[in-house]
């Protein structure tokens, strides 16, 4: 390839336009030139993948770069990816393919609607189907989901083992044998991860205290696999979707309440394409709707300064910013402070789009974890509690507050704080 070729320019020695003298260098123009330095081939390669077409829309305005959470800890953003492709990077073979968390902050500001939430899964799927490099940890999460029904690789028949210690009876819809108002989809991390189980148990106690007629699927519940889809495993997602829709439709219920924003996204926004169109709601929205009944139950003061982290898939992807804040403000003693990046501009924890299972890989290509950046931001508000509403986040941020020396910040799901106020310190 030839080196950069300097463009030639032309000047008119004498020129007057509308009475203004623009002679000499004032009218300088560049001659038409052919650009040899870069080829559009690698951009077209991505844009030719179905659903990744908008990659070619980029006109390099760079509005996406400052809002890209990965750029804050590295050198990233859609505009940069386009430029890398222009100068020789094949995205389907580059580590950059796996760094996007599909947080959607770039799309929010993009005037050309370059949609990384569609481009990345499509390009990743292509790479996986072509047998290109897939980070080993991600491969493990895919295999676990396919084999065990959850990315953690835990046995399916232990999915409801947590209910034994929840402190309240939790009905399984199959055993109940009657319609319920609420089918509560617990989710994989709340079912298996020790800190997720804390949140699930708190949710069960809260629903019970509110007198909600609810049940769970128990051993019939399997992962939503939305993050696996976004990480490029559409086939796996479709396999899980077929199973889940069939399972949901076996029973009579009015509303599906989910613990996690990723499940909300799957069931509400993606499942309709597969024929499932029934009411789905995140627990924060659901509980905010019951706020009048909930408030009298919040008897004990919880004297903490709380900052709330907006999960990308609850906020930007599904527009829910206020319900979590209403719940936190309803807790007596809680002082809510905001981080600099909040609501629409909330900073990603790094767990979305499969990032949950690529921490070791992404660490090699970034200065620090996104969760660490966010934990530092939370600590800088002076808050002593970082409140979250996504089951991916408790474990991510608990690690991050430790690794950044901010152990004085406790990480709690909103469910745990509500439970604390209902029951007092246990």
């Amino acid at each position, binding site marked *: 390839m030839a080196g950069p070729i300097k463009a030639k320019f032309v000047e008119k020695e004498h020129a007057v336009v509308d009475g203004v003298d623009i002679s000499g260098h004032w009218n300088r123009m560049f001659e038409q030139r052919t650009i040899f330095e870069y080829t559009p081939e690698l951009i077209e390669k991505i844009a030719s993948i179905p659903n990744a077409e908008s990659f070619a829309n980029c006109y390099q305005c760079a509005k996406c770069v400052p809002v890209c959470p990965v750029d804050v800890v590295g050198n990233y953003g859609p505009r940069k990816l386009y430029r890398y492709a222009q100068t020789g990077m094949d995205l389907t073979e580059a580590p950059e393919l796996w760094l996007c968390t599909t947080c959607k902050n770039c799309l929010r500001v993009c005037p050309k609607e370059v949609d990384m939430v569609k481009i990345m899964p499509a390009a990743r799927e292509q790479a996986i189907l072509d*047998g290109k490099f*897939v980070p*080993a940890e991600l491969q493990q999460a895919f*295999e676990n989901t396919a084999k*065990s029904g959850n990315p953690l690789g*835990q*046995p399916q028949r232990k999915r409801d083992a947590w209910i034994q210690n929840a402190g309240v009876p939790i009905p399984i819809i199959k055993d109940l044998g009657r319609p319920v108002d609420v089918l509560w989809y617990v989710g994989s991390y709340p079912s298996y991860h020790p800190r997720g189980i804390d949140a699930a148990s708190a949710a069960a106690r809260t629903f019970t205290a509110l007198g909600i007629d609810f049940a769970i699927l128990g051993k019939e519940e399997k992962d939503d696999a939305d993050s696996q889809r976004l990480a490029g495993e559409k*086939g796996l997602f479709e396999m899980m979707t077929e199973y889940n829709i069939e399972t949901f439709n076996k029973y009579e219920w009015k509303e599906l309440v989910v613990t996690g924003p990723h499940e909300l996204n799957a069931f509400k926004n993606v499942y309709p394409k597969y024929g499932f169109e029934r009411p789905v709601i995140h627990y924060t929205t659901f509980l905010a709707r019951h706020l009048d009944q909930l408030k009298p139950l919040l008897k004990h003061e919880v004297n903490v300064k709380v900052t709330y982290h907006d999960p990308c898939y609850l906020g930007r992807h599904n527009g829910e910013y206020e319900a979590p804040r209403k719940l936190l403000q309803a807790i007596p003693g809680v002082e809510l402070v905001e981080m600099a990046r909040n609501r629409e501009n909330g900073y990603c924890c790094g767990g979305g789009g499969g990032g949950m299972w690529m921490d070791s890989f992404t660490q090699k290509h970034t200065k620090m974890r996104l969760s660490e950046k966010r934990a530092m931001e939370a600590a800088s508000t002076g808050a002593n509690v970082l409140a979250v509403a996504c089951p991916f986040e408790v474990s991510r941020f608990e690690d991050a507050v430790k690794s950044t020396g901010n152990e004085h910040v406790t990480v709690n799901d909103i469910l745990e704080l509500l439970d604390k106020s209902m029951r007092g310190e246990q």
Partner: protein
Amino acid sequence: MNIVVAIKHIPSIADELPVKGNNVDFDSVDFVLNEFDEQSIEQAVLVKEAVGGAVTVVGVDLIGELDSALHLALAKGADKAVKITADEPGADSHMQAKWLADAIKALSPDIVFTGVQASNDLDGQIGPMIAAYLDIPYIGGVSSVEASDHTATVNKEFAGGFGAKYAVTLPMVVGVQAASKPPRYAPISKVRQVAQTATIEKVVPSGEVNAGLLFKKMAPPVVTGHAEMIGGSSKEVAAKIVELLKSKGLA
């Protein structure tokens, strides 16, 4: 090149192992593909990709659920799948080796891959016994294979970080410790496509053979000890470790 991979379906140890009578409670445990077989499938496909030929994957169907493991192998690049319909969940390595050898003999292979061992009986006997039944050599603990027409170069691992390179004449049986590359990922869409279109050849197990092991009793291990945390400065800790090793007659 005619390549055969012998695989083994084993009880999953993702959960605690349920015991019934003097053996595993096979009705309440999931069966999974032996981990080392994932390596041997990969090595077989790598050899095929290097020199051409076809890979046949063959396994004993112990509980009627082997198809998914065979589909996975086909999605990763195997060309043909054979299952030996034994329906005997407790069949050990001796019994499986006999059935596998009979099925493999009919395929007249140039090279047979097995996992070096499996985590259930841990005896590493399937490979050597197949080799004995077929009357061809066996090499185990293998970490890479490069084959040409009638010969192969095989890396074998020894303890202490040592390795040796062998030039071998085919046919032979190889017990794979690790493939020369990490096992590839088979996308689910491909596995499902294979599951809908592939035909799995069925073979009835032949020949009487005795089990290699007789189970007298099976029980979860009894917890007898616990880890001791040694505190103090690094010098103090080092001194305590030395003292401890001396007291056990290890230093």
